[in-house]
């Protein structure tokens, strides 16, 4: 019995092993194919079938026209501008005569500390005569951009004159001082480049930095240690220094604080780390240095070390427009790549004549700079003991900046307080001084304050009157 079952099991096992060992396969078209190959072929066909089937995606339902109509009807836009608040109601004073050291406002004679007329050229007879000649010859506007018959011989003369004055090989003239810097920066620095800028630069520089799309690092206002730390950080991170352009942007005299940039230190650092410097000399051109050539002359730095100098001519030169100088390569590059040079009408010719006249005056009368410096020193001394306000500007800066000793907490209330002081000073004492204004788009973190623009044509009695009136009003406001 047991052997019978054993036999059956043995037979079954034999059958199974023989089935495994049996040579499987068929002979197709005279070619022997093993069985496992057919099985694998079947598997491959299943895989291919699965791959070619599309995966199930939920059906895409684009919005129907009716739904878009509903969305468009429902959408409510914000008003174009926010509601005006109390601040917007303050009207600036309307001048009724030239903006010299004395000006007429509302029929009264007022001492004017609101115009950046540093060399006293507003009202200068020679300059006005050359402008009249220019107006009669060329008319007012130039009616065309520089590339399309807007270049007049006056422009070329002006550029040559300015270049000779500063000591650079060439100069490019822009038609408006404000747009010079925010057009120069994007012309030289593009996406992927690196810019290091002072945090106290004014709005036009900030706009230029935004438009250039470069990576921007800010260092603490006029703080060389902060600048050095940032330089070290950047230089250690750059992998290909020959392909990344690096710039440092500073102002010679900062509009927002009256400080002067320490150019010697900056040049030393920039040469060590291979940066190029863009220097905005709007308020120092015609003011600093023994002959008024600007910050480089004052600090004793040779011109070749400064790569790009820009300046607005609406200050010391008492005209309008802007300039940008540098090496020949720098200036030529701008003439072809700078948007505010190419896509806009050129400077009115009479303003270019005024600039030439201003430079001639400055070269013939360098003593005007000594007078300006004496005025600044005198006024600073007089303002050293005003209650509630402290002078923070550099002793050589023609912008005297007074900030609140103790801030009220917010920019808005600070501005209120300062505005009330300037209003009172104007109404009761006939002296025109101004508060720094901050646009809502401005990112500058420096505090607000009062500004006095000192001119070489202010007399001592003007300065005494200004200081005395400010002291009186401040004493009442901060008591």
């Amino acid at each position, binding site marked *: 019995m047991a052997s019978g079952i054993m036999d059956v099991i043995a037979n079954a096992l034999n059958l199974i092993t023989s089935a495994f060992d049996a040579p499987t396969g068929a002979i197709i078209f005279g070619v022997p194919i093993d069985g496992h190959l057919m099985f694998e072929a079947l598997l491959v066909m299943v895989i291919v079938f699965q791959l070619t089937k599309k995966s199930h995606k939920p059906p895409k339902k684009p919005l129907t026209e009716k739904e878009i109509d509903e969305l468009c009807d429902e959408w409510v836009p914000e008003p174009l501008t926010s509601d005006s608040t109390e601040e917007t109601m303050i009207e*600036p004073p309307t001048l009724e*005569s030239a903006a010299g050291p004395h000006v007429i406002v509302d029929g009264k004679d007022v001492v004017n500390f609101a115009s950046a007329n540093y060399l006293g050229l507003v009202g200068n007879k020679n300059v006005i005569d050359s402008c009249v000649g220019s107006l009669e010859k060329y*008319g007012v*506007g130039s009616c065309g951009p520089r590339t399309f*018959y807007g270049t007049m011989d006056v422009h070329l003369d002006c550029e040559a004159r300015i270049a000779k004055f500063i000591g650079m090989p060439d100069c490019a003239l822009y038609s408006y001082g404000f747009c010079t810097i925010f057009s120069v920066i994007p012309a030289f620095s593009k996406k992927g480049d690196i810019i290091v800028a002072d945090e106290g630069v004014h709005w036009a520089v900030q706009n230029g930095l935004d438009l250039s799309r470069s990576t921007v690092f800010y260092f603490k206002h006029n703080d060389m240690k902060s600048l050095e730390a940032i330089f070290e950080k950047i230089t250690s991170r750059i992998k290909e220094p020959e392909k990344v*352009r690096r710039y440092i942007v500073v102002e010679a005299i900062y509009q927002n604080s009256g400080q002067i940039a320490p150019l010697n230190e900056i040049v030393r650092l920039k040469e060590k780390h291979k940066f190029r410097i863009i220097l905005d000399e709007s308020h120092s051109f015609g003011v600093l240095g023994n002959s008024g050539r600007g910050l480089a002359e004052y600090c004793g730095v040779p011109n070749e070390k400064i790569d790009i100098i820009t300046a607005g001519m609406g200050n010391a030169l008492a005209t*309008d427009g802007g300039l940008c100088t540098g090496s020949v390569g720098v200036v030529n*590059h701008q003439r072809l790549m700078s948007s505010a040079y190419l896509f806009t009408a050129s400077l009115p010719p009479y*303003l270019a004549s005024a600039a030439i006249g201003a430079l001639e005056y400055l070269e013939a009368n360098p003593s005007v700079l000594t007078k300006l410096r004496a005025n600044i020193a005198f006024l600073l001394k007089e303002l050293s003991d005003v209650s509630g306000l402290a002078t923070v500007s550099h002793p050589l800066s023609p912008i005297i900046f007074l900030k609140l000793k103790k801030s009220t907490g917010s920019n808005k209330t600070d501005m209120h307080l300062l505005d009330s002081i300037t209003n009172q000073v104007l109404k009761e004492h006939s002296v025109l001084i101004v508060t720094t204004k901050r*646009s809502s788009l401005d990112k500058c973190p420096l505090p607000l304050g009062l500004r006095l623009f000192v001119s070489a044509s202010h007399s001592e009695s003007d300065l005494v009157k200004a200081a005395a009136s400010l002291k009186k009003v401040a004493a009442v406001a901060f008591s």
Partner: protein
Amino acid sequence: MVRLPYTTALTTLFSYGLLFVFGQLRDFFRKLLGWIRKPKDQLKGYAPICLGLEDFYVRRLYLRIQDCFGRPIASAPDSWFDVVERCSNDNNKTLHRTEKTSRCLNLGSYNYLGFAAADEYCTPRVIQSLKEYSASTCSTRVEGGTTKLHVELEELVARFVGKEAAILFGMGYVTNSALIPCIIGKGGLIISDSLNHNSIVNGARGSGATVRVFQHNTPSHLEEVLREQIAEGQPRTHRPWKKIIVIVEGIYSMEGELCKLPEIIAVCKKYKAYTYLDEAHSIGAVGKSGRGVCELLGVDPADVDIMMGTFTKSFGSCGGYIAASKEIIQYLKFSCPAHLYATSMSPPAVQQVISAIKVILGEDGSSRGAQKLARIRENSNFFRSELQKMGFEVLGDNDSPVMPIMLYNPAKIPAFSRECLQQNVAVVTVAFPATPLLLARARICISASHTREDLIKALEVISKVGDLIGVKYFPAEPPKHLNQGHNKLE
């Protein structure tokens, strides 16, 4: 619209290709020489200002024809002026002024109403204001730079344009680039025409808002873009847009076309988008009384939210303005950086605009304004129709004083410019990057100070030069009028 025939496109591409190949060859040799000569020590370690191919176009293409651009002049940009001749010793790389000048007919300056030179009504008043207020106020508008003249001009501009209030800026370019960031920011949408001016593009970029472009002067595409954008919302978050502004120009300076303003305003009103109209070239030059495209096309100025314009073209001065409702202008006076930080407009320039507007409105007691407006319309229409009859491809609409003549091939650009200058006609030629690569053109700007004889002489010269270099792409009509003109001159 431009119809570019295939043969012309092929030849133009071939020319550019050839120039490109030669340029690359020269670059290759420059690199070789650069390895042989050592670089200057002081520039070692610095990245060069222009890397690689960034300035290829400038170095290899533009510099060859540099003498056609930037020609200096030695007199006022009136209908006839003195062009200073320049010479070059190194094949156009650098150009030097000479003392010689030649008297040429001016077809390039933006002098639409003829206020460019000294004018009998405007100039004495400008000189008077110069003596009174000096050349500059050296201060910003909000500090000590607002004079009586500025206040007067703002009221006058608002009255002229037909809006409630206006604000002045010292430069037209700055008006756009410093204003757009003020009225729109992140979370907003700007839809601008594809051929808008560089200042608008810069302003839109600087604002931080999302920018979309619609096909040039096509209100139906604008509607498509608006519907799509409102339905989608902001990118990625799909929140609804804070506000939408559509920016168009009155006359497009490279095409000479008028904007399709009534249709665009209708679309914007339907979808509650704000409109911004840049009338740099059209204010003072078109319209029965010079009030711009709104008057010409019959659009009510109250339907346009913000109207911008410049004083450079029709008023012979400098600067720009914005005209809008009282609330918007008040807001701008408080927050626009160009108003708070920039030197105020020069007082003599302000006086020039005041006098020019008074002449245009007839408030100076004469009819010179109406005469000028009629003359520029006549001149533009006459010139355009004659050019078209001669077989030139001229762009632009009727009544527009800007007329581009298509050239296409790069070699025709300097040929046209130099040949015309030899015959004492000064024209402006425009190529890449101001226009698309294949569509180079010569642009004529007509002025009210051109007389009929001036125009006939210009037509003669352009016709001769056109035959010489082969830019008469269309069949010409038999020249009946011109023969009469010939006889008149002889």
